[in-house]
């Protein structure tokens, strides 16, 4: 509101303290500007089209373009184009996926891992979000929330490295267990599905926590009090009131965590091992080696995109939502 007060003076006559016209006043009086502006804003329709130009260009060029291009390359037999060879249309890249275990196993492993990690993240963060929204005093909530936020501003690589130090053979966990006399030799946590899970949950928990928190924060306390007065036990209150009313948050949180966790590349490389290879590593392989494997990489990326968006679409449908406001 404060900003508007300073603008109450007539802009056409507005003058700077020195008695000279302000930049904006001068601009509105400038003949060239007036001509251009009146041509641009002649009709409502024209004004709308100008306003729409950059957004529509960006959305179709930068958001949709790469995805469409990726699908298209997946149908070619060679890309980038070679001299003297016209790329031919082929389905071989897509067929290759179904013919080799080397591809199918990491693919389903990725989906299974992401599913499991998402479920564990939900179980861990739900009580945290509930505690924050319902038990922490209003004025302290910001502080408690900030405490959770700070680690999540740190990048993927740095946090992955932190997990490596935690779980390594000479890491903190093994040292603690050894000094307690619980183990003789270090437990090999690293390069397994376990270390990968600890890392991925560490990276994604916030995307679950924030939607849950904002859903639970909106839940009115008196609903729970009324239910308690009517004789509902703690479990009934949770199952009949808290859970249904936080469904929105659960749906957004799970969607985000699932999609993001399938897309990590560096974390599985650093924390995972040969028996926990994920599909991101398979795809990346096609773009590392010299040679002409882009089309297959493109086809595989397309398969993964369809699968992940398909799974989340199905999930949102089951949760009774159409996916609107997913980003909130």
């Amino acid at each position: 509101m404060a900003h508007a007060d300073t603008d109450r003076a007539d802009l056409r006559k507005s003058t700077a303290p020195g008695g000279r016209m302000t930049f904006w006043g001068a601009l509105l009086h400038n003949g060239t500007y007036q001509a251009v502006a009146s041509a641009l804003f002649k009709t409502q329709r024209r004004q709308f089209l100008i306003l729409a130009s950059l957004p529509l260009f960006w959305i179709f060029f930068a958001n949709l373009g790469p995805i469409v291009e990726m699908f298209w390359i997946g149908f070619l037999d060679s890309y980038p184009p070679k001299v003297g060879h016209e790329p031919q249309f082929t389905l071989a890249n897509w067929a290759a996926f179904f013919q080799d275990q080397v591809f199918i196993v990491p693919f389903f492993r990725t989906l299974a891992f992401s599913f499991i990690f998402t479920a564990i993240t939900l179980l861990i963060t739900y009580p945290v979000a509930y505690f924050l929204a319902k038990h922490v005093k209003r004025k302290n909530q910001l502080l408690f929330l900030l405490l959770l936020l700070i680690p999540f501003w740190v990048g993927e690589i740095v946090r992955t490295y932190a997990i490596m130090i935690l779980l390594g053979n000479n890491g903190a966990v093994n040292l603690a267990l050894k000094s307690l006399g619980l183990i003789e030799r270090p437990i090999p946590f690293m390069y397994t599905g376990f270390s990968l899970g600890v890392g991925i949950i560490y990276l994604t928990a916030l995307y679950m926590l924030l939607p849950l928190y904002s859903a639970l924060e909106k839940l009115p306390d008196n609903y729970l009090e009324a239910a308690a007065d009517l004789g509902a036990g703690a479990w009934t209150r949770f199952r009949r009131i808290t859970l249904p009313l936080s469904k929105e948050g659960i749906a957004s949180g799970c969607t985000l965590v699932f999609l993001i966790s399938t897309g990590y590349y560096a974390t599985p490389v650093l924390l995972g091992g040969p028996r926990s290879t994920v599909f991101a590593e398979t795809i990346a392989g096609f773009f590392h080696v010299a040679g002409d494997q882009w089309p297959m990489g493109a086809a595989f990326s397309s398969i993964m995109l369809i699968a992940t968006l398909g799974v989340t679409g199905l999930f949102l449908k089951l949760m009774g939502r159409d996916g609107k406001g997913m980003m909130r």
Partner: protein
Amino acid sequence: MTRNTRILMSVIYWAFIVYLFVPLALMVTMGFKDSKFIGFPIRSWTLDWYTAVIQDTEVLSVFGYSMTIAISTTILSLIIGTWIAVFLGPNKFRGKAIIFALACLPAVIPGIISAIALRIFARLIDIEPGMFAIILGHTVHNVPFVALVVMARLSTQPKSHIEAARDLGADSIVAFFRVTLPYLKPALIGAGIFCMLLSFDDFVRAFFLGGYQPTLPVLIFAKLRSGMSPEINAISTIVLIMTAILGLWAERSMRRLNKGS
């Protein structure tokens, strides 16, 4: 809510905080270890790794490179994201829901797929792997976040603001720059810092879209693959402190945004 569940939940909250902070604390601690060998126990301490990092010209130039990319990305993302928000926020037209969904698309596509798609796309529009390709990739990824934050702020602006400006003789352009833009300022600061963090921390896009010159996360990744060393801890700690400061600043300006409306 019984007393016991309340206690249980506070235990879970604090355990979760420990889970979040302990790995980072260990990483910071290890940067002061007086040995090349990462692991416990730590017998003697040193600041040598930090002095080495500050004098390492490679690290410094990579840092500058990452900063250049982050700042360029932020400026582009703010312009495009705000424009999209101003277009999609107040206007109603057929197919708006689809356009809105497409505008948000890059934010939900798994990172590796987005990186691969952009790598192929950069080849199509003839951009060499390197700084411009990374800036394009980061901008594509960041624009949805800016658009959403700005749209949220825009929806709280009273219509009378613009009407008053128009009555006083401003046309749409002047009204936007003198009335709407100042109103959006807190949202733009918050979204801008968030963009910088996203760009500076990003690995997967920088890795696939980059040329020979690495960004900071790519450099750390390369060093990690050739072995853990306290030097990496020192670099990471410096990055950690910077991101925490930037993040707190962004949080503060976003907080003011919510109070102001």
